[in-house]
């Protein structure tokens, strides 16, 4: 049972790592598709968008209450 869970754990992370590697190599147009899902992004010096994790943290903390 434990082994099955660990294998499964590894498969979720394998998928995630694959996606992250592909994301990091993706074109700015493709990356901006990801960022459209995020309320907090900021422009870097080269004009591309990155996620502003400081605002992300603030928003995620207080936006979860019902």
């Amino acid at each position: 049972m434990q082994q099955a869970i660990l294998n499964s754990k590894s498969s979720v992370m394998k998928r995630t790592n694959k996606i992250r590697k592909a994301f990091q190599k993706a074109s700015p147009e493709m990356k901006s598709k990801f960022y459209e899902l995020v309320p907090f992004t900021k422009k870097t010096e080269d004009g591309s968008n990155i996620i502003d994790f400081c605002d992300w943290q603030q928003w995620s903390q207080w936006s979860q209450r019902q």
Partner: protein
Amino acid sequence: MTAFRTLIVLQPTPFCNIDCEYCYLPYRSSTEKMDMDVLGKIAFEVFSSHLVSAPIDFLWHLGEPLAVPISFYEQAFSIIEQIAKDSGAEYSLSFQTNAILINEKWIELFKKYNINIGVSIDGPDFIHNHKRVNRKKRGTHKEVMKGVKLLQKAEIPFSTIMVVTSNSLNYADEICDFFIENKINEIGFNIDEMEGVNDNSSFSNVQTDKFKQFLSRLLLRSVESEGKFRIREFWLNLRPFTAVTKEPFNTTNKPFRIFNFDCKGNYSTYCPELLAAQNSEYNNFYMGNIMKDGLDAIETNPIFLKVKTEVEKGVDLCKKNCEYWAFCGGGAPSNKFFENGTFASTETLMCKFQKKEVVNLLSDHFEQTLQIN
């Protein structure tokens, strides 16, 4: 970026002007108010405690915050401002409201103090009115939308939270249409949880496939909107897909990232929902009272130490056993306690639906978008 910022949840009053059927808060008919001496002591302790990291976010919640007069906040904000000035720490102010009591005077206050607004609304009227009712059991959608329109007219940005029940799952497109047509752009979806005085959840019998189908429509509509309709459940889980992180982000299962104060000055850390518990074994999760104990005394409080040990056991179990650890970091203690009867446990309904199914769906979506085989 700072390691973390502290969230201070304040209960101005336990009173709520409506009576939602899934609400977890007790004493919603009590009109008691937080005394300014209590607030002053909280602000003083918060700005001087070594347990608190700035910027500090003050969130007025745990009751309807607009149910107390505007003059209450004029006084409260002036106290906070003065103490913050002396300490030099940055802070922000937020309300989580049902929006029903918003009028021009509240709008003036929101603008004057640059207050972040979160509105609770459950989508279109036929869904919202099912559970978000007043004390006469009448739906409140019309009154909420009046408040929403006033915010929009005043160009005050706001986010929304929708509580999803098993009934809502049949109406994904109607929900998306409602938010998009009303130009409500930032939405978080919470499932109705078993917490506090709400001892059941409509999700106990929901099949994960049905939820995934609902989520798929939301994701598709969010992607199609090109940034005009953004859903918290998706961006909240995006981080591990885009960057290597040292540890998962979770503020609810680590002590001192959130402090919760009821209107009498009793406080706890971890999830705010713990203050809604009526439990003699844990002394209602009171980990101190600000007037009697100050704030730093929490570190040696026996209830805090007991909860901390159990929460850590639960987080450790998640770390060892859960394949979604990187996205979650060990779940929410209040969900574990109210659903499983102990903090030293693992999966809850929130894990199953709001975490695992969201991550599975995002993985499918990104594999397709990035053409990964």
